């Protein structure tokens, strides 16, 4: 066994090298110690959004091998199926080579190559004109963007409110549901306590976010014998190794969770002291139906929420730790009747409408199972509580000798998020965690710094005036509204943003609504735009709902023959489906050729034990005329003379992205990277820019990580040492406790506005929708599509799951990953298949109220009986991603998005809303209802709809017929190889 201390996730005695790891005498001439590379460069993976540390072994300038960085806090040496196939992504034949200018009709893929100077001139002229006249006519939407603190800041300085990344399509229900409830969220802002949890409850498909930490964690749970319960209609991926799989009906998770809450309340299995200390359970809610402040918190003259102090028999500021707060009862304070918010919560969920037997049928989960799970949760939380021998002091100054924990952890992701009731469902899950006292305690679900933040975090979305010529926005385009006054609507209540985010149709749209942009821009609703600029957003294919119609909108013209969306600028590293729809293409680099920062200002990669950030740096040089998009954006900013991008003399402030990463300060002393700040690199968090910062990152393996002291690692919402640290680092403005908002006052403010109170009220047509969906306590309602379509005609749910070896659309260009899956099937449960006389390989039409798509069947057992599913984004468009004419991806693979509407069916007034959550605007693509129809023999063999093959970009060599990658690395009999293939 190696003498060195074992590092990394796979360091069990059974995973280490041999006791004497040197070649035995065998005499067979095998070279057992070939040279691997000339150098090892440590950077950050980009094969998905997990952002693991990687060691890139380089040989003669070629990538020989990529493995996980053992010191990296995200992946600790392991690397998933995608990351381990990074070589093939880097050398993909679909890589763009040079800027392209459209020559044929939009969508044809006919381009000519141009020089960067010309490309930048075209883009600058176009954008400059927009900025001088009406900056909102630039809609800037990015996709799987890991640089949103730059791209959003650029949009703000340009002066357009029309900016977002793809979070509105992906996961804003999770982010907003968490941030408005506990000041953190699943995935990027929190994680299970894998080391200490005894019970793990996983909701929905989570195989993509995040990748390796969850897998490492599941391995730990298994090795410790913790129980793992998965709640998912499909028994695939992680569900396969769950100790118990609950095959729930899609869109009913909220109901299931509320039934668990019902059971726990009924039995008194809730952590009452925890609720009193860390939540707004004791805050008094005004009970005065019809009044303008009904349902709001009772506050004192300083605006502090009040609680009822049972000792003094009087109302008192709730944040005073000395009081004995009432959580139940009805009190009169200054003539106002009020009740603790917990009283309302308990009344709500103790109602028999949430009893297991009342929800069982809708959830497809037996009432006995719900009761048993609730009993198990109660047992583990209250009979198996744990205690770490670590002293800490809370914000009230109370020192505690140990850290007590209720070892139940939870995680949820897209299966919850992508439903139109996902926001409330996500809040319900956080409520369940909180009632059990499991948020940020040992064994529970933990915050990753810089979270927790106030619920919700402070900044409001900027751009209410719609943007003015040559004027930056007053802040960032995306933020958190807490009242109708914060909405981005005009005086008549009409949306300010092109995507209608932060309008009455989606008030809490914290990530924007990328999925509405193309339709709205095409329709000129609320106004026409001039230019749509996109980055890594494959909106002409898998990043849109209703893909066929979306493609048509991109090419539609007005009576004069002009495109209805006048100009499209697109940046991507690869020939994705969307490239063909651009007028100007700015080719990006691969992830191994660029600088990036994985910033705490953006989407952090911290660990619950401490904050961290990371960089990418070019470990190989591009062999094509391509430039990293962020550097291009910075150059555009300088050419446009955007404030912040130029010096006083008008010269460019930043040479490129690397220069920006080091020298940009968002606030004095706070920049994109937290590590090695200050002149000598001695400061963390705050400090002046350090010219040697990137070198320090590279020396440290590409990342910075600060390990919190043991006493700072839990109870972060009220841990004085942690909160002091958070202030010092600039995470929080003040070291005040983060109080979990089980009862949400911002939601009630919207409800009041719908009921006719306040200065800003919804248009009459929107009142009922706001009133019904802005309940201050989590509610459940049937997913919208289900409620609006004839469910007898469309009796089935259709959803997608994430193959762990593919990330969105990127995997199909990867010669290795596509060998694992180049065609997706429609997975159909055995009883359903029998009733429809379907067998493996049969072709079926998957028909919805929105459209239809054709695919091939695979019969399975492990699926909820009323659900069919397929792998996400395997189906591709012919000609895209460097694939040949006969590739399975576009001949037999299919894209379910063709059957998913971007609009809901008309409601009783004939209005068609976006197919989105009414609170956050999250795209509701898991709400899809379908029926299956077996194809006639003549219809079998090829998927539909089919589209004309895209022309490959100019001067791109056809993909090879044989790939012998690595042949040149081979070493024989001790002789080093010459050259590489």
């Amino acid at each position: 066994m190696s003498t060195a201390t074992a590092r990394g996730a796979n360091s069990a005695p059974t995973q280490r090298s041999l006791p004497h790891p040197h070649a035995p005498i065998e005499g067979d001439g095998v070279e057992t110690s070939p040279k691997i590379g000339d150098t090892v460069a440590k950077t950050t993976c980009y094969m998905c959004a997990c952002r693991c540390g990687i060691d890139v072994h380089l040989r003669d300038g070629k990538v020989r091998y990529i493995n996980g960085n053992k010191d990296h806090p995200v992946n600790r040496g392991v690397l998933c199926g995608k990351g381990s196939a990074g070589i093939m992504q880097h050398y993909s034949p679909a890589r763009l080579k040079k800027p392209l200018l459209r020559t044929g009709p939009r969508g044809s893929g006919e381009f000519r190559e141009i020089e960067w100077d010309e490309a930048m001139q075209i883009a600058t002229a176009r954008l400059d004109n927009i900025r001088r006249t009406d900056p909102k006519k630039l809609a800037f939407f990015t996709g799987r963007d890991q640089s949103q603190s730059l791209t959003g800041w650029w949009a703000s300085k340009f002066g357009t409110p029309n900016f977002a990344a793809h979070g509105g399509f992906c996961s804003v229900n999770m982010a907003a549901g968490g941030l408005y409830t506990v000041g953190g969220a699943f995935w990027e802002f929190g994680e299970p306590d894998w080391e200490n949890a005894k019970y793990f409850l996983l909701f929905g498909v989570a195989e993509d976010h995040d990748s390796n930490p969850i897998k490492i964690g599941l391995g730990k749970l298994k090795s410790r014998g913790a129980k793992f319960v998965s709640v998912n209609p499909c028994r695939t991926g992680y569900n396969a190794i769950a100790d118990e799989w609950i095959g729930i009906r899609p869109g009913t998770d909220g109901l299931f969770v509320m039934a668990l809450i019902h059971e726990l309340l009924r039995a008194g299995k809730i952590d009452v002291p925890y609720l009193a200390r860390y939540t707004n359970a004791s805050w008094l809610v005004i009970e005065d139906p019809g009044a303008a402040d009904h349902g709001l918190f009772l506050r004192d003259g300083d605006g502090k929420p009040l609680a009822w102090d049972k000792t003094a028999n009087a109302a008192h500021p709730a944040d005073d730790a000395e009081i004995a707060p009432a959580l139940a009862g009805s009190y009169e304070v200054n003539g106002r009747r009020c009740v603790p918010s917990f009283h309302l919560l308990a009344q709500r969920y103790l109602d028999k409408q949430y009893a297991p037997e009342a929800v069982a049928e809708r959830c497809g989960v037996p009432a006995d199972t719900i009761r048993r799970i609730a009993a198990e949760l109660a047992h583990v939380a209250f009979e198996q509580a744990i205690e770490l021998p670590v002293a800490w002091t809370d914000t009230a100054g109370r020192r505690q000798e140990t850290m007590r924990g209720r070892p139940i952890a939870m995680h949820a992701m897209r299966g919850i998020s992508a439903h139109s009731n996902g926001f409330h469902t996500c809040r319900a899950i956080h409520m369940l965690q909180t009632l059990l006292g499991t948020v940020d305690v040992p064994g529970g679900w933990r915050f990753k710094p810089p979270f927790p933040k106030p619920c919700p975090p402070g900044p409001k979305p900027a751009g209410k005036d719609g943007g003015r010529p040559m004027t930056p926005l007053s802040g960032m385009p995306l933020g958190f509204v807490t009242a109708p006054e914060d909405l981005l609507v005009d005086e008549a209540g009409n949306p300010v943003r092109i995507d209608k985010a932060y309008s009455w149709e989606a008030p809490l749209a914290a990530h924007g609504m990328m999925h509405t942009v193309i339709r709205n821009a095409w329709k000129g609703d609320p106004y026409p735009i001039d230019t749509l600029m996109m980055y890594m957003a494959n909106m002409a294919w898998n990043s849109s709902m209703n893909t066929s119609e979306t493609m048509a909108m991109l090419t539609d013209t007005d009576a004069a023959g002009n495109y209805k969306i006048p100009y499209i600028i697109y940046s991507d590293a690869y020939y994705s489906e969307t490239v063909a729809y651009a007028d100007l293409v700015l080719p990006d680099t691969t992830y191994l050729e660029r600088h990036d920062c994985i910033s705490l200002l953006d989407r952090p990669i911290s660990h619950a034990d401490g904050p961290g950030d990371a960089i990418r740096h070019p470990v190989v040089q591009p062999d094509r005329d391509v430039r990293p998009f962020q550097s291009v954006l910075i150059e555009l900013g300088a050419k446009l003379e955007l404030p912040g991008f130029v010096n006083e003399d008008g010269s460019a402030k930043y040479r490129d992205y690397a220069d920006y990463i080091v020298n940009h300060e968002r606030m004095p002393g706070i920049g994109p990277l937290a590590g090695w700040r200050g002149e000598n690199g001695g400061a963390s968090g705050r400090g002046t820019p350090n010219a040697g910062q990137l070198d320090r990152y590279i020396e440290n393996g590409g990342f910075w990580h600060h390990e919190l002291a043991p006493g700072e690692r839990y109870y972060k919402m009220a841990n004085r040492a942690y909160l002091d640290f958070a202030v010092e680092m600039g995470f929080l403005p003040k070291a005040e406790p983060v109080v979990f908002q089980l009862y949400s006052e911002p939601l009630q403010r919207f409800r009041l506005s719908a009921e006719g109170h306040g200065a800003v009220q919804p248009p009459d047509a929107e009142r009922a929708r706001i009133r019904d969906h802005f309940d201050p306590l989590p509610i459940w309602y049937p997913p919208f599509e289900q409620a609006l379509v004839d469910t007898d005609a469309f009796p089935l749910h259709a959803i997608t799951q994430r193959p762990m070896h593919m990330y969105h659309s990127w995997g199909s260009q990867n010669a290795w990953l596509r060998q694992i899956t180049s065609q997706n099937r429609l997975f159909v449960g055995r009883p359903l298949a029998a009733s429809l006389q379907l067998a493996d390989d049969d072709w079926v039409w998957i028909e919805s109220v929105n459209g239809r798509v054709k695919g091939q069947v695979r019969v399975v057992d492990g699926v909820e009986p009323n659900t069919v599913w397929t792998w996400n984004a395997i189906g591709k468009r012919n000609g895209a991603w460097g694939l040949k004419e006969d590739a399975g991806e576009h001949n037999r693979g299919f894209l379910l998005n063709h059957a998913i509407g971007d609009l809901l069916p008309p409601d009783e007034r004939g209005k068609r809303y976006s197919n989105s959550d009414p609170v956050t605007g999250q795209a509701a693509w898991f709400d899809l209802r379908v029926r299956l129809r077996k194809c006639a023999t003549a219809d079998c063999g090829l998927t539909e709809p089919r589209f004309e093959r895209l022309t490959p970009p100019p001067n791109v060599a056809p993909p090879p017929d044989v790939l012998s990658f690595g042949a040149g690395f081979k070493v024989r009999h001790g002789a080093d190889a010459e050259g590489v293939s």
Partner: protein
Amino acid sequence: MTSLPAATEKSLGLVIDLDTCVGCQACVTSCKEWNTGGHMAPLTDTDPYGGTVDGVWFNRVHTYEHTCGGAGRTVHFPRSCLHCAEPACVTVCPTGASYKRASDGIVLVDEDKCIGCKLCSWACPYGAREFDAIVGVMKKCTLCVDRIYNENLREEDRVPACVAACPTGARHFGDLGDPTSPVSRLVEEREGVALMPELGYRPTNRYLPPRARTERAPSIAAAPLEDVAPDGGFLGWVDRVLSR
């Protein structure tokens, strides 16, 4: 035809935990990535971007469902060479290209001697052989013989690529011929199995079976939940809790 060593000094192999494997394919691609530039390089892919794509892989994961004790289950099953003690792929080889190392028990192919007759792939009941039609030789898992002793790697990294990459920690490596080795102890503890032992090839690799659902669900001795305050009401109970 090709003879086997009478005994091997070590029996190096893998132990794969089917109770933990989520089927993520990390072992599959990390193996491909290492080995396509390694001892048997390249692991050729044909029609890599077309409709008949195929390639040489030393390790593949199969996913299937089965029913056990009335309950269904999905199993992810990684499959690679088992480095048998009595491998038919070696004894059937007409040229001595397939051989089993006496030192560590690894079954290898000497490409210089391989004539591509494919007898070994017919003989192997586990489907572990991979023919490289472009190069014209048979290829297979080397147990990363060019990693596990590689003096150019840190000692801690001298493990097969699949073991290093596995994100759930479901793969283990060591000397299964030594009953005191950590892997042998793991196999004993978890009642690891050999695949199709009845065929008599005495595979070295072991699989740790998925625990039966009822057994593997750690027993939570949870009593059914009773109403907390059938008389006084829930809200009265809450008040009393905080008063304590």
